[in-house]
């Protein structure tokens, strides 16, 4: 099977994740969409690793996972902190930047 198919799949998943970030309002769902995009990127890395015949891509994908884990921890802590002060998990409610 042509490994390029994985790349097409990754592109689709990435696009879906991006749309999710834009259209969903629940901060946690937005976060999950970001995770989806990261996973799609990881899939391309693994695929390229296979195409190139070395393991560098996999190592970078591993690093991506670690960074994603950090990001989830901090991001969710931020969501909790915001929820605690505003009683809302909607990212539209945190729109004080324009003021």
């Amino acid at each position: 099977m042509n490994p390029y198919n994985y790349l097409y799949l990754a592109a689709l998943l990435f696009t879906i994740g991006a749309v999710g970030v834009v259209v969903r309002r629940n901060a946690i769902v937005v976060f999950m969409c970001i995770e989806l995009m990261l996973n799609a990127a990881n899939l391309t890395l693994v695929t390229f690793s296979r195409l190139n015949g070395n393991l560098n891509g996999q190592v970078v994908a591993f690093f991506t996972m670690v960074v994603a884990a950090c990001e989830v921890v901090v991001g969710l802590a931020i969501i909790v902190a915001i929820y605690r002060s505003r009683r809302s998990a909607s990212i539209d409610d945190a729109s004080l930047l324009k003021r």
Partner: protein
Amino acid sequence: MVTSSSLVYLIGLPLFGSLFLLLMGRKADKWGHLLATAMSAGSFALGLAHFFAMTDRPTEERALTQVLFSWIKVGDFNVDAALLLDQLSISFVLLITGVGTLIHIYSISYMATDPNRRRFFAYLNLFVASMLLLVLGNSYLNLYVGWEGVGLASYLLIGFWNQKPAYATASKKAFVMNRVGDMGLSFAIMIAFATMGTVSFEGVKESVERAGTPALTAMGIMLLIAAAGKSAQFPLQAWLGDAMAGPTPVSALIHAATMVTAGVYLIVRSNFVFDAAPTAQLMVVIVGAITLIFGAVIGMAKDDIKKALAASTMSQIGYMILASGLGPAGYAYAIMHLLTHGFFKASMFLGAGSVMHGMNDEVNMRKYGGLRKFMPITFITFGLGYLAILGVPPFAGFYSKDMIIETALNAGGAKGIILGSLTLIGAAITAFYMTRVMLLTFTGKPRWDENAHPHESPALMWIPMVILSIGSVTSGLLLYRNDTFKNWLAPLFHDHAHHEELVPPIVVSALALTMVAIGVAIALMKYHFKEVAPVAPEDVSWATRFVRNDLGQDSLNETLFMKPGQAITRGLVAMDETVIDGAVRGVGSMAIESGSTLRRTQTGYVRAYAALIFVGALALLTAIWVVTQ
């Protein structure tokens, strides 16, 4: 104790006193004046120890140098913060700390009721420290630090009662006019650095031959401007009269005895420059001659006792500057007159302060009269100072002033005759206005205000006056006898020329005394045998008006400098407002306009920004698509 390493304490003691009192604040109010006086006295004691140690050493080893630290080190250019104590410096050190200590003591009583007495003493100590640095610095740059320090202290003390706007203005005037002189000093330092590559006195002295006459002339003129600014000489003389706004001890110490003589010190210290630049030397003489007449003429019309004394100071410093411009023959006499003047003028200023103290701070001499009976000590000390400044033998002024007149006459040719006659005329005018001061203040009928209760000042005030008046009686003879002072300073100057006596000394003395007698006689006619009006008469000739108006010095400065300056400033302000501000405002309003347009894209919603990023990524992909086509 009297080794070179103790030089720094001469400055350090009063500097510590000043900083300590300023930092301690109100806590030191009770004992601050005592500390300051002790610091000044300590410095005087150390100075005396140094003086006696110096007299014990042979002539060649008398100068002491203490290097404190390496101050500026750039390539070959190296300036140390170093102190130099030689025969010239020690004369000043003793004058500054001696008179300074006496005036500290006087001020304890004079300022007793002032709530800010501690601050006053802190400034006085600051002045003493700066003045000592000025005379002890071994290079023009070190001198410059002290030079600015005394300027600052003078500014602070003139404006000490700055709650009165006129006094604050007077201090600003003094400060600004001093800046003009300071410019001259900084230019002189730059010239020295540019042409000789050194700014120390020793270095400049050694490289005088290399520098060439034009550079030396320029440097000399710049030094003269500096001296004119600090010593209130023509054309920078206008500030001294207004400087009398400060408390009287300040006028005595700073604006009579010490700071204003810094210009003379500068010129005498730079003797090697002026000896090599005859043009600059001639200008020194001219400035001195103009000022000595100028000050004396102003002094004739002053009713304010302190301003009359200030005009007299200006005139007397004119004598010193003139003497220092006469070359090696005059340097020693300039400094000698400076020292005797320090005694008698400080004594008279303190006397004036004592009179004011007893007369509710009245300064108008037309409101005095007949105070002799009420203030006997003040009368006697003031009178001794009066006899000294007149040059009556054997008082101090006789020796020092006569020597200047004699040197001027001996300058030879037309120069000698012109200078000689100017100094003699100056002596006559001095005799006139000083007699006027004496008569208006101490003799005649009382013309006081109803609520005046004249009384003698307390002991703390009259003791310094007595000591100073003793100095003004004896100092002249002590310094003159056997040419003591001239020989003392001689190693510093290159006096190779043989001075022939064109006019015998006895003739000079006779001439001078005749002129003095004429001046006294005119004053007696006008103010002793005639009734003196308590208010200055208005129906006077234009000449009197002109003199009362300080010979138009302020109007001249206004027309020449202030008005054009204001015009330039107004023009610049207009340009600033239209061109520069216009451009700035244009940029600002452009930013506001574009900002308010762009603001609409900012909704504050994270998702909107995410959508923008998404669209941006799409644009990027499109670009890649187009590029890889």
